[in-house]
């Protein structure tokens, strides 16, 4: 039997599946943390922009484009800063358009497909409610640049969270059909909520230094806030299941690759071009 050539096997990650970022390298940790924040905004902004021109009314179209625009703005600030921290000459565009799935650090929730409008609003509600609380903490970050970005973004995200909560209530309370769709949407997205509160070595390392926020510190508030909106909508609590994780380590759902195909097509096809 002919033997196959040997395969270079990369060294196993430390621990039993835990995050393997170099927690003793402050710049590496900060870079990765900024990617998490920036990729969340980028991927959700990209998803929302798929709606443009196809929403239920001009007003809805406007509000979705408006949220997408805010998120792309946040992504630009965060990824540009990530590039500076990394110090290898990459800027926000390089990071957005020239990384593959394994190097994206967004949570799984934001990359979920739009589905119908209820599914889109379920995702927005669960994410923006979390992002607002995170940004409130980050506005007091020991890293002045993160603090400034968060302070600006928290105003935008407050509007996103309010708008989404209003839609959850409207759709939950509206008609038989809208209630059913809202429940389906929430059910689809609920699996990915625990990941938002996943605390790993990197968050712990940066939280200790006052740079990052420990998501666990606002978990109870988040659950209470989500619960209150669902109650106002006459909807049941979110279904519980074993958390699905991986986004923060580059292990995504199947959806992200397709999103990147579309988003990155021009810069990758014409790497020499300036637009």
């Amino acid at each position, binding site marked *: 039997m002919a033997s196959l050539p040997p395969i270079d096997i990369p060294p196993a990650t430390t621990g039993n599946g835990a995050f393997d970022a170099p927690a003793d390298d402050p710049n590496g940790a900060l870079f990765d943390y900024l990617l998490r924040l920036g990729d969340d905004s*980028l991927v959700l*902004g*990209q998803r929302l*922009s*798929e709606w*443009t*021109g*196809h*929403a*239920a*009314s*001009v*007003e*809805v*179209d*406007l509000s979705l*484009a*408006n949220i*997408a*625009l805010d998120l*792309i*703005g946040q*992504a*630009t600030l965060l*990824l540009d800063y990530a590039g500076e921290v990394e110090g290898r000459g990459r800027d*926000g*565009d390089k990071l*957005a*358009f020239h990384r593959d799935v394994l190097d994206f650090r967004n949570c799984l929730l934001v990359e979920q497909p739009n589905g*119908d*409008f209820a599914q889109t609003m379920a995702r927005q509600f669960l994410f923006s409610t979390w992002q607002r609380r995170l940004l409130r903490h980050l506005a007091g970050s020991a890293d002045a640049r993160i603090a400034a970005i968060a302070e600006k973004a928290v105003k935008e995200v407050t509007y996103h969270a309010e708008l989404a909560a209003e839609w959850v*209530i*409207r*759709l939950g*309370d*509206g*008609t038989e*059909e*809208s209630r059913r*769709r809202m429940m389906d949407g929430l059910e689809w997205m609920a699996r990915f909520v625990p990941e938002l509160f996943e605390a790993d070595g990197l968050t712990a390392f940066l939280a200790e230094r006052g740079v990052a926020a420990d998501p666990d510190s606002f978990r109870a508030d988040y659950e209470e806030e989500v619960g209150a909106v669902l109650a106002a909508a006459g909807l049941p609590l979110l279904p519980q299941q074993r958390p699905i994780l991986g986004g923060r380590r580059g292990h995504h759902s199947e959806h992200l690759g397709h999103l990147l195909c*579309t*988003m990155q*097509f*021009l*810069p990758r096809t*014409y790497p*020499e*071009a*300036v*637009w």
Partner: protein
Amino acid sequence: MYTTELQKTAKVASTEDPDKLAAFEARVAADEFIEPKDWMPEAYRRTLTRQISQHAHSEIVGMLPEGNWITRAPSLRRKAILLAKVQDEAGHGLYLYSAAETLGTSREEMIEALHSGKAKYSTIFNYPTLTWADIGAIGWLVDGAAIMNQVPLQRTSYGPYARAMVRVCKEESFHQRQGYEIMMAMAAGTADQKRMAQDALNRWWWPSLMMFGPPDENSPNTAQSMRWRIKRETNDELRQKFVDITVPQAGALGLTVPDPALGWNEARGHYDFGEIDWEEFYSVVRGEGPVARERMQARREAWEQGAWVREAAAAHAEKHSRKQEAA
């Protein structure tokens, strides 16, 4: 243009009260604004409703060709700019639907007329956006033509329309600039980019000239619309202005306008340009444009698939107001 007369002639019925008609015409001739509650001839109301709703539909359908590229914009900055631009167009659609509603037709009725094919929208949006350069060409040429048309409409005789145009015009110059900027980057870029830029100009040039509508001798409503100050310049006047301004801009980009007959006419002080293929124009007006079916299908699908959302919002508002009454 967004607002060309593409439909039937406006006949002033002889049943209008001659005194009221005379007073109305005197006010219009004195450049006074007509307001929603003022008396107006039925034909004026009809013409304006058609024109403003057509303009509103154009803003909304116009989101589709550009929306086609938001997810593929080649940089974060370009993506943000295009999102902001398309968001503006949605806003323009809203102001214009509101302005048209002051004449007594509801937004639902107008949208119904669009979806049934009864109402028209600008012919330009029935052409496809094939490459990123098309987004540049649309901003530069299509928004450029829109500005040409809309600046005089800020003094149109119907108050709500004129005021909507003031808000719209403030945003249009940004739209044109971002388009021209895209063209500048591409025309000065790689061979692939230059090819896309020239190809976009080749495809969008003639449809842009068609946006101003049929030639004056075939534009039966122009005289009446000018008299009522609904329109302030004729199709051919606006088209000539557009050519005069745009040709040097193409030159500055190093691109060639696809018209062998194009040339500066010293005596006229204007560019001469070739004959427009009016057969193509009228076929696009009839709904035979290359992507006319796709555009209408997208609009109808958005509307039909969004019906449950609008119903839910209405049902919730209804329940909510009943609760408030009970409280």
